């Protein structure tokens, strides 16, 4: 058996410093998504930024799952993916609806809600 293969087969627990690397990347991705969500004014880009935050959270879950040798982390990411799909469907339907009314994707155009 080759070395690469045996590395794949014999899963050893991940070092905590390695875990920290992944967590920093996941936190940075979450923060970038947050910055984009707050600062961009186009509704579609705002929803893309929420997906970016989902990605950051998902990476953290997979990294922790690997740290504890537990597959629950991956299962959670499957559910996050499901909710992201549902959220995208509803959000994009709303975007289409709002665009039809005002012909603008600017969130400021909808600053005032009238019942």
């Amino acid at each position, binding site marked *: 058996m080759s070395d690469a293969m045996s590395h794949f087969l014999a899963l050893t627990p991940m070092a905590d410093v390695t875990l920290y*690397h992944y967590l920093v990347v996941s936190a940075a991705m979450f*923060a970038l998504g947050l910055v984009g969500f707050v600062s961009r004014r186009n509704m579609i880009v705002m929803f893309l930024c929420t997906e970016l935050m989902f990605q950051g959270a998902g990476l953290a879950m997979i990294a922790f799952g690997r740290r504890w*040798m537990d597959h629950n982390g991956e299962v959670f990411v499957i559910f996050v993916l499901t*909710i*992201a799909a549902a959220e995208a469907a509803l959000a994009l339907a709303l975007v*289409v609806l709002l665009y039809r009314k005002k012909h603008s994707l600017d969130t400021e155009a909808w600053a005032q809600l009238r019942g």
Partner: protein
Amino acid sequence: MEHVLSPIILYAAIAIGAVGVALALPRKANVNPQPLGALIAAAGIGGLIAVLAMVAGDDRPNLFFYVFAFIALGAALRVITHPRPIYSALYFILSILASAGLYLLLDAEFMTFALIIIYAGAILITYLFVIMLATTAPSDEGYEDLEEYDAVAREPVIATGAGFLVLAILTGWLSVGVPHLPPPAYKGGDEALAQLPLKVQQAFDEVGLLEHADGEMLPFDPGSVAGTYYDPLTRQAQLLLADPSRFRGMLRQARARARGEDVSEDADALSPEAAALVVNEPVTRRDGTVVVLVSFPESLRARNIESVGLELIGGHPLTLEMAGIILLLAMLGAVVLARKRIDLEQAEKLAAATGTLGGGHA
């Protein structure tokens, strides 16, 4: 207190990244600082990761981690700074592909491909459709024809400050907390094997442990091995042989080895690796069945998809059903929200209801 990384270096790198991102956000100005901002942001984040690599020593992740992390974060930066939404969506796909690479490095093969298929393949295509529906096509390469809400970010400084404050707090706390995590209860990733008896038996079959007495290989038959008990912690199985006559060769050798005899002259000798798996002398029980303790072959491991599948279906069945219901309701909600209302006159409604509309005499 023990830190993974000195807090001064950590917060300095985050501050540099924040300045860069604030400059890189879209704005209308005579001197566009966007490329400079992107460079500073890349320097901040890249510096942070480089310092991390230096402090990690031998524990640092594989080189591909740095490649994928750089692509994922760089693409994420372009998602939030590109003035054209369609390019934001395309950069988001790039970011997803790089995250999928990180998942692969974390031994989550199933999620890697699920992420590419579901996110990059399905969700992002929906986004692209809506962008094409709701955005005018650019007439030229410049950004003059952009809508005002795409060209100018809202409060870039405050937004970046808030976002990077969150990042500083998160990474600062993690830097203190991660070294104090208790060690994992080592499970070796093999718990799933207890629920995969056929896979274990097939593995024994492949090394030739369940070989027939006359040296002839039996086709794999789960019925000949009954009542098997698997212990994934010690990686051993207690095989209960219902029909010991079919395993005479294996049993004879196992007994000979237990007595310390040399079995190498035996014409039907098991291969050395197969014989080495037998742990104890086979025990014949009163009903004629034989119990023998064998260890798992070293190459036998539960695959990632098997572990995830067992965890998903066995551990979270109710959540899985709820996810299905949520998806169904989201689909209904999207249909209800996005349909077009068509206003009909009272007479037309009446005609449509009674089915007399159309047919040439409306």
